[in-house]
């Protein structure tokens, strides 16, 4: 599904190197977690994957379903099936959540030469999905993320994910700012979307999210590299000992 090879990235402005040779391969249906301390390059990796400007790839490659995506526009990567659940979802005043969702969905469909959904089809789909995530219709009518609570924003990200049906989902610290109940709802939403054709890359500081979204593989990232990979057990190790030990190994 996703193959990251020797990826080196620096900030365009400061020329500061952030990723220093990341290697990561995710097969269809797998859930991988990337854990690591602040500043280890986790969020940068999610931005580079999705094509945010401001980063310069100095070496390495990223292939999504066998296609090199580093030269593609963000919207092309999205249409190819890449989805990023933002750590801090962006507010767009005046743009209704429904309008946004429908525009996004139909843009992707158009890009893939599929027919656009009409209003009725879309409405049914969004209502069904919203129900699963405890999102009431009122929230669908409000402007995108404006005045949403932390929990609402994250649930809204998962709703978008459910609607857009991506094949490669990157979750950037989706658990940050969530209380236990809200995290459970989000995790339930994500688990409901797991299937053998859809892969996940779950970026998190803490092990607690991984109790609810159980990964197949856990990677530890530090100083721009993946320094260790293992099973879900590895996350527990982090929980007990912190990241300090791993850094020493590195």
């Amino acid at each position, binding site marked *: 599904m996703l193959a990251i090879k020797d990826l080196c990235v620096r900030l365009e402005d400061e020329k500061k190197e952030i990723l220093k040779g990341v290697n990561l391969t995710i097969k269809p249906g797998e859930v991988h977690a990337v854990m690591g301390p602040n500043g280890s390059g986790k969020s940068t990796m999610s931005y580079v994957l999705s094509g945010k400007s401001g980063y310069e790839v100095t070496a390495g490659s990223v292939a999504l379903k066998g296609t090199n995506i580093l030269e593609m526009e963000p*919207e092309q990567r999205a249409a190819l099936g890449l989805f990023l659940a933002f750590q801090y979802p962006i507010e*767009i*005043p005046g743009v209704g959540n429904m309008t946004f969702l429908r525009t996004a969905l139909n843009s992707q469909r158009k890009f893939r030469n599929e027919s656009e959904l009409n209003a009725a089809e879309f409405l049914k789909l969004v209502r069904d999905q919203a129900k699963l995530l405890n999102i009431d219709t009122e929230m669908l009518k409000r402007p995108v993320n404006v005045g949403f609570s932390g929990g609402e924003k994250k649930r809204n990200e998962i709703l*978008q994910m459910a609607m857009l049906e991506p094949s490669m989902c990157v979750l950037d610290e989706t658990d940050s700012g969530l209380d236990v109940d809200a995290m459970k709802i989000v995790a339930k939403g994500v688990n409901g979307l797991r299937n053998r054709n859809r892969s996940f890359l779950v970026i998190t500081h803490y092990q607690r999210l991984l109790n609810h979204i159980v990964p197949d593989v856990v990677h530890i990232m530090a100083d721009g590299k993946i320094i260790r990979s293992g099973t879900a057990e590895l996350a527990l190790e982090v929980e007990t000992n912190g990241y300090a030990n791993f850094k020493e190994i590195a």
Partner: protein
Amino acid sequence: MQELDGQLRDGVDIETVKTVKSVGEQYKYGFVTDIEMEFTPKGISEDIVRLISKKNDEPSWMTEWRLAAYRRWVKLEEPSWAMIDHPPINYQELYYYAKPDSMNTKPKSLDEVDPKLLETYQKLGIPLQEQMQLAEVEPDDTLEQNTMSKKVAVDAVFDSVSLGTTFRKSLAEAGVIFCSITEAIITYPDLVKKYLGSVVPTSDNYFATLNSAVFSAGSFVYIPKGVKCPMELSTYFRINAENTGQFERTLIIADEGSSVSYLEGCTAPMRDENQLHAAVVELVILEDAEIKYSTVQNWYPGDEDGKGGIYNFVTKRADCRGDRSKVMWTQVETGSAITWKYPSCILRGDNSQGEFYSIAITNNMQQADTGTKMIHLGKATKSRIVSKGISAGKAQNTYRGLVSIHPKSRDSRNFTQCDSLLIGDTCGAHTVPYIEVKNNSSRVEHEATTSKVDEDQLFYCRQRGVGEEEAVALVVNGFCKEVLQALPMEFAMEAQKLVAISLEGSVG
């Protein structure tokens, strides 16, 4: 080959160059209708003014009215206070009257109008048949898509003449008069004499005075006491002839307790030379009456280098004469090389209300200096101003507004919100508010913001699969939401699309 050279030499992405070049071509209404036209001789003089009056079969009082205006105009100087810049306009190089030959024998109804002219409006998407206009309406947030059937009566103005108005019979049954001003001068002289120039006097300003001397066409509307106009009224202005100015005059009177919603739209062919449009709109609103006046201005804006385009110098004013009268101006200004326009409200009656909602979009070399004047005279009058200015390319966009609360206008209130959005770093936004409050029981609030299109917002949209230009349109439409909502539903969708088209080529 040249393009290829350009690519090799400068490493310029051909696609980008093409996108930018195509902006001028995005103007969908730039076609020319090829027909025989009759013009008055070039230039302006007393004789030309008399000739225009004669061509319109006007009574002598009207001719004299025009001449008085002309004599004043020659003594006036073009105003220079606006933040706009253009080469001097040579008023003797313009045609002031242009009429399709086929309109020489007055058609009795639209059925008799030259099919070529009717085809023009068909191409523009304006319904001149008396049928239900099927507008697919999608209320943004509810997505309950419904196909609304709505009747809209249309006055079609082509250069200096009105081709005719639709739904005359059903409007007459309600007592509503909707015809061209030229026809009204002949058929309803008492109403015209009483109200014409009573809101915008012939001495008002340079362009209004010029308009008073040479105007032709424009709409006349009278809504009798207590009548709610049974349908939307609208006028579509089309400039077609070369080197010709359009000087229409619109007069709407809402008698006591009546109400009407009126919409005007404007388009013009793409031409290399600038063309002048100097219109006057007067609204008279009596006790408990209400007028909602919406404009979607899409004159040809010129090309990306600022060549061609309409100079749009317009005077619009509403006089809320009666107590509890109400006016609402909504404008979406996307076209014109220059827009100079301040739809204003004189709040004379006690408890009268004026509202002004504006979206002004300037791209490439366009310049807009637009806003409103709220003159509070009556007691407990209220006004509200919501202005959204969007600049892209090398455009300059100025909001200029006056809120004046007079000593006797006690307990009055104004709220002003002025937001500017910049796309790129070669454009400009300016806000010039004037506030005068002459009593201590009134309240004025002014809020202003200037922002750039947020990169994070665009990235968020694009990550969800929305292309860059569509993402800009989405964000800008959100920015304009309050104003778009003030438009009649069936035009809001059209305006939204227009916002997107106007900004094409503004990014990347």
